[in-house]
């Protein structure tokens, strides 16, 4: 066991919210320690960074008529007072998103407050506020003319005809004309390789170039861009997408992914690399029965002492909220709140978790939006609505009030609340 590690800010959780909080506090000049157990839900990301859906949009409207992310987030905050966007306000959302894109520039495309329509593996389009560099050229609104959807011969994880067929539905709404083609994988890239293996192999010198040549040979005449399976490189620094595109002669993008997700792993790698480069002390482990900010706490093999803590432990996948009959916050035993319609409070969270679901799956599910309630400075509140501790902040999916996996605001909330919690923690020190 090592000695006592002293820091200005302790961040618990290494997903998007925790990493952005650590980087924001680090940029403000604080010494930051980050404790994380394993890759969290951020490593399951599809590649799209959902900021805010356009709640007023109608099915069938032209894609270009959807509201841009910042305006959609402001409207969502006005409509849903419990949502983290409403609690902390969306005034600094643009600043937070730009910060995240700058810090994670290896993986994420720059933020320009435009909604990009990205194809999924199943041929539907997702309107994302941010996306990875590997997705940019596949924005359905940016391709004018023919979009080649290229599958790999023998690769079972991607059905080009399914994707092209699905994207055909968007032609009338301003999307490009899709056409499925098949590309023979160059020697050395096995079609039966698992997605992350294929992606890793493409990072190697020469492999992406060989795929680009094969793609060029398979492209139909007049193709303006090519959409490939989500396996275009695992290492954000290897720039596999750009290398494939340079040889293919057209802009190249990948679709969004299902799990196990190469884009998610790429995003996770970019987070890890940035944390190391920024000088954040990353500790592998788990906060064990944490007392309160300011007191030494054990994490893995280390003892850490910091006057300000940021809890970014995630929701159910990350383990920030546990379901043990009833809902609980395991690290600090904070009060978990759930909301059902207009009724909200800790009394709902002490009910059996199974009673917090609704049979109609299109209705809001109280269980899925349960989490911590915080004030405008992201300090968790106790049962009576008072901050638990002046030096304790929370960010990301551990916050209640949003269905982070399904309501289209998950990573946007992680970035905004992570950024604000990091700044607040840096000031509070």
């Amino acid at each position: 066991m090592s000695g006592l590690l002293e820091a200005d800010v302790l961040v618990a959780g290494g997903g998007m919210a925790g990493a952005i909080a650590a980087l924001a506090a680090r940029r403000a000049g604080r010494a930051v320690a980050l404790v994380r157990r394993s890759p969290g839900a951020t490593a399951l990301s599809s590649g799209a960074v959902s900021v805010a859906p356009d709640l007023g949009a109608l099915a069938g409207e032209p894609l270009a008529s959807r509201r841009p992310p910042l305006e959609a987030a402001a409207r969502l905050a006005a409509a849903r007072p419990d949502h983290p966007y409403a609690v902390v306000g969306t005034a600094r959302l643009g600043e937070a998103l730009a910060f995240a894109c700058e810090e994670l520039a290896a993986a994420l495309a720059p933020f320009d407050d435009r909604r990009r329509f990205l194809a999924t593996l199943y041929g539907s389009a997702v309107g994302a506020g941010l996306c990875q560099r590997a997705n940019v050229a596949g924005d359905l609104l940016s391709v004018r003319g023919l979009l080649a959807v290229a599958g790999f011969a023998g690769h079972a994880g991607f059905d080009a005809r399914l994707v092209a067929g699905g994207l055909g539905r968007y032609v009338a709404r301003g999307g490009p004309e899709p056409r499925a083609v098949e590309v023979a994988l160059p020697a050395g890239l096995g079609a039966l390789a698992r997605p992350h293996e294929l992606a890793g192999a493409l990072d190697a010198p020469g492999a992406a170039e060989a795929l680009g040549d094969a793609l060029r040979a398979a492209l139909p005449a007049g193709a303006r861009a090519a959409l490939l399976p989500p396996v275009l490189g695992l290492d954000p620094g290897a720039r596999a997408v750009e290398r494939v595109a340079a040889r293919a002669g057209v802009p190249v993008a990948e679709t969004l992914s299902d799990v196990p997700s190469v884009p998610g792993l790429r995003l996770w790698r970019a987070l890890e690399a940035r944390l190391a480069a920024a000088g954040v002390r990353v500790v592998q482990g788990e906060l064990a029965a944490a007392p309160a900010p300011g007191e030494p706490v054990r994490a893995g093999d280390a003892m850490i002492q910091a006057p300000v803590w940021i809890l970014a432990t995630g929701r159910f996948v990350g383990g920030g909220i546990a379901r043990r009959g009833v809902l609980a916050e395991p690290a600090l035993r904070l009060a978990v709140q759930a909301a059902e319609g207009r009724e909200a409070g800790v009394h709902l969270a002490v009910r059996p978790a199974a009673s917090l679901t609704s049979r109609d799956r299109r209705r809001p599910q109280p269980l899925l939006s349960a989490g911590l309630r915080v004030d405008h400075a992201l300090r968790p509140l106790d049962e009576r609505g008072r901050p638990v501790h002046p030096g304790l902040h929370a960010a990301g999916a551990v916050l209640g009030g949003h269905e982070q996996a399904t309501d289209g605001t998950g990573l946007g909330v992680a970035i905004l609340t992570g950024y604000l919690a990091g700044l607040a923690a840096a000031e509070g020190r």
Partner: protein
Amino acid sequence: MARPGALAYLAWRALVAHPLKRLFKWRGTGLDRFRAAYVAEGLAPAEPARRAAAEAASACISCGLCETGCDLATATPVVRALGLHAAFRLYSRTTMDLALAGDALERCAGCAGCEALCPTRVPIARVLAALRGGGVGPGRGGRPG
């Protein structure tokens, strides 16, 4: 009249013959009787250790992150492509389907590279040991009984 005769016969069976048979004819232990009735349907009896492993495995969300730390180097290409966590997905369905993952389980080198990657803290090595001990894996072909 056949009816009183039939009723008397049924009463004799229910009240005298059957209880006497239950008393004096040995039909095996409860476990034997469970096996006789259910094993053909793929329901193997669960010992406490195995049941604990099943509960631990139920935290699996099939995200596949463990696959990225799993080599499965000696498996055939098709088994590798399916991956070891296919065993978990099959496990969550029925023990009958689990036999399909026998080959993958057999090829697991026990490197434990997967466990640190699991976001929901499934004790993967312990679950695999229970699966192998419970009728799936080397030489057993996964068939119960």
